[in-house]
């Protein structure tokens, strides 16, 4: 019994002697335990992923403001939902007026697009592509609901890719599709004894610029500017560098019959987020021909009999 009494006295004396140390020890220990418990409960179960839809692929220093992230996602979600439901009017209304005017001037054209792309319900993924001067470009991929099909019908993933452009205007977001950014009225002209070329308009897209030009033929001869017979017939000067005109499946030969006017669209690759300016359009292979058949076999003969062959640059500034 003496042993226990002795032990009790020793413990009491120790506590008396080191009262504050003991208190501090208990407090620190309790705090550490509490922090540990709190941290354990705070562990967020967010999986590590490389999918960062709000980080731009093309870095140019401008980031996507957080305040718009949810709105943009909601916009795209709603738009795809309307398209999947074939609610054409509502989907159409979501597109900005300027974009509608340019890309789908009437509802029927938009309907045709929706019926083609959304022939079966589609799911989508989004990725911020680039941001420049408060214009946020998103890459949107639309594809079949692969979770629902398990890719049973198609071994590779086929998707429709589009670029949705969001523009801040008066504190609101405007959505454009098909890479459309905006239109600019132009005031550039070239005039000589044979023709007058007026640049009417420039449509700025995420990755190209489309120019609408009107060519007036003042002569009794055919004027040929481009018929894809030689390289660089028409090109663009982009801050000292040359870019060839885009020739795709929709491209049409650029020639004007005697004493008449025609309007054409020509385009070049121009990345909006690079902020580069197109300073001129050069016409490298102007042919004033007495006769023009469009046949490549007759080309040399037609050129030999040409009234004039020359080149010029139409300044855009």
């Amino acid at each position, binding site marked *: 019994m*003496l042993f226990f009494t002795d032990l009790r006295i020793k413990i009491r004396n120790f506590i008396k002697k080191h009262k504050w140390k003991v208190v501090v020890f208990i407090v620190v220990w309790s705090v550490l335990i509490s922090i540990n418990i709190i941290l354990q409960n705070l*562990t967020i179960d967010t999986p590590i992923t*490389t*999918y960062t839809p709000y980080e731009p692929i093309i870095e140019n220093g401008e980031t996507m403001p957080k305040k718009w992230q949810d709105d943009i996602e909601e916009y795209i979600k709603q738009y795809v939902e309307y398209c999947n439901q074939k609610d054409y009017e509502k989907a159409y209304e979501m597109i900005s007026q300027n974009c509608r005017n340019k890309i789908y001037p009437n509802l029927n054209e938009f309907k045709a697009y929706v019926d083609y792309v959304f022939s079966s319900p589609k799911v989508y*993924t989004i990725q911020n592509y680039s941001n420049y001067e408060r214009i946020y470009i998103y890459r949107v991929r639309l594809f079949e609901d*692969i979770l629902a099909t398990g890719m*049973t019908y198609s071994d590779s*993933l086929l998707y429709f890719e589009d670029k949705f452009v969001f523009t801040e205007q008066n504190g609101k977001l405007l959505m454009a599709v098909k890479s459309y950014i905006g239109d600019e009225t132009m005031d550039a002209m070239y005039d000589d004894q044979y023709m007058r070329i007026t640049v009417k308009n420039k449509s700025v897209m995420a990755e190209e610029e489309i120019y609408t030009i009107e060519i007036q033929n003042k002569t009794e001869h055919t004027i040929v500017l481009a018929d894809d017979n030689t390289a660089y017939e028409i090109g663009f000067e982009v801050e000292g560098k040359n870019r060839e005109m885009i020739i795709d499946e929709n491209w049409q030969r650029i020639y004007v019959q005697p004493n008449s006017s025609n309007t054409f669209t020509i385009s070049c690759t121009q990345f909006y987020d690079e902020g580069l300016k197109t300073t001129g359009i050069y016409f490298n292979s102007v042919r004033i021909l007495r006769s023009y058949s469009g046949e490549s076999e007759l080309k040399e003969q037609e050129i030999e009999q040409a009234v004039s062959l020359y080149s010029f640059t139409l300044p855009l500034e």
Partner: protein
Amino acid sequence: MKKKEKNLKSNIKRALVICSVIILCLIFLLIILHLTKTEQQEEIRTTEQRDEEIKNIVRPKGEKERMQIYLAEYLKHIEKQEYEQAYQILYAEFKQNFFPSLQSFCSYVQKNYSDLMKVDYTDIQRQGEYYILTVTITNLGELDTQITQKFIIYENALNDYTLSFQAI
């Protein structure tokens, strides 16, 4: 005085011995209790605990490894013939399209997979939040066949996922 001191010493010795015996008994008891508890825990492991275990495994992993673990878990259910659990993992619309009943799924699984499989991950792609895994499954044992199949996994949160596959 000497007698008193002697008594005191022998009392202390006795107390020490008693204390040691009690402590040893307590430790022994604790060990037995712990062992019994572990055995019982093993027996009554709930799905939640298993989920938590998998969560802890996948938490630090990258997406590629995580997807492989999820797919391995799904295939493990098939190997163990836990078809209902495997069926539950499948995406609802996929089930509607290809396996409207558990029975139809069981028939498919029994026809195409064996109870012992070797899985080789050929390719993994991410399309937004969808992961597309191409795997070669070698059925060992009776079936002795090999199939290459795509699995699509969608992860909601850690160890919370749904999947579908090429129902070929």
